[in-house]
């Protein structure tokens, strides 16, 4: 059986997998990291979004072996060792950006990538387009959008440019 070596949330892991093992199966079933969810299993809902080498990808649409040698960050890897939440997690809590919470891990991971890749600022429209690959069936997205806008200044260490509001 082939082996895959990945660094997950900072910890090197070498695991035996099948050719067909998906990255999300490696995370959930082999490593016990069940914070990453499987919603639709058809690449549409985004509940399974994790970061692979810093980029938000759908772990249900990537083979575990494709991630060989990569650094993977899951929702479990965001908070500090002392339990201090990542600013995006904190803003999701602050703005009540969740109801049932099923989509939340993928939303948070996608949102962090969105903020990271827009250092120049982020408009509400850009946030909404940026969430195109993440479905929430409870909130109507409004509070998620607010939480992401609120996280931007915390993550970039400055206030969101007025023109981008």
């Amino acid at each position, binding site marked *: 059986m*082939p082996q895959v070596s990945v660094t997950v949330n900072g910890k090197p892991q070498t695991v035996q997998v*099948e*050719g*067909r093992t*998906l990255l999300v199966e490696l995370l959930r079933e082999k490593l016990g990291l069940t914070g990453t969810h499987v919603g639709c*299993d*058809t*690449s549409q809902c*985004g509940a399974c*979004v994790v970061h692979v080498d810093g*980029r*938000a*990808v*759908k772990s249900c*649409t*990537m*083979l575990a*072996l*494709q991630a*060989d040698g990569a650094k993977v960050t899951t929702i479990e890897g965001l908070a500090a060792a002392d339990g201090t939440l990542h600013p995006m997690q904190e803003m999701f809590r602050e703005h009540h950006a969740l109801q049932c919470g099923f989509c939340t891990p993928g939303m948070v991971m*996608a949102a962090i*990538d*969105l903020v990271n890749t827009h250092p120049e600022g982020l408009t509400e429209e850009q946030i909404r387009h*940026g969430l*195109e*690959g*993440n479905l929430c069936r409870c909130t109507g997205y409004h509070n998620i959008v607010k939480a992401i806008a609120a996280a931007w200044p915390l993550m970039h260490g400055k206030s969101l440019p007025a023109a981008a509001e």
Partner: protein
Amino acid sequence: MYDFAYQKPASVADAVKLLADPEAKPLAGGMTLIPVLKQRLNKPNSVVDLAKLGLTGITVSGGTVTIGAMTTHAAVAASAEVKRAIPALAALAGVIGDPAVRYRGTIGGSLANNDPTADYPAAALALGATIKTNKRSIDADSYFQGMFATALEPGEIITAVEFPIPQKAGYEKFRNPASRYAMVGVFVANGPKGVRVTVTGAGQNGVFRHAGFEQALAKSWSAASLDGVKTPADGMNSDIHGSAEYRAHLVGVIARRALAAAG
């Protein structure tokens, strides 16, 4: 998913050898192949990952933009060089799928698959691109051969795509509100291959050129010159999302928006 042997060759030559097995499937970004495998619609003995063949990168020189086959949509969308040379192409790459899909999906994978609702085929045909493979160069005019059909032979691998830089180009699409795939996408270009208008998403045989619009725009590059030019409903898709007549009408609407985008 049925199990398979996963292979990640380090050279195009090795990949070609592995793909000589008719039961082997090439894997680019996997944004179509992996969902297909999950649904057990395909059962390859081996999957050959093309990620380590050195086929990524973008170069602009001598009036041509060359994009490596394994370059992701996100990389094309973010490329300052592509934005400068063919802004419509960067814009098109930026509206494929969703952000997570754009980090994995590749231009070579999109063109090899030739999904009838894919975006890149419209750009390749309108701009008169050349599809480079491990064996030869294929003109876009002879490359697209109908729904999911291309001139690629079994085991042939796309290595790069060359786009001649046009004077003007624009792309616009109307998404299916549920699937988000293009119901109609129109690419307009005025470049080295002349004035071309291509339509994706609408036709039963995949991407096609719109001769009526091309003739009208060749006379005068303006939305007004499209007035009165008919788009036949024959050959258009017809389903629960829209009739052939609806799509034919939409082609005219979206072509005008693409023209506006082209400026």
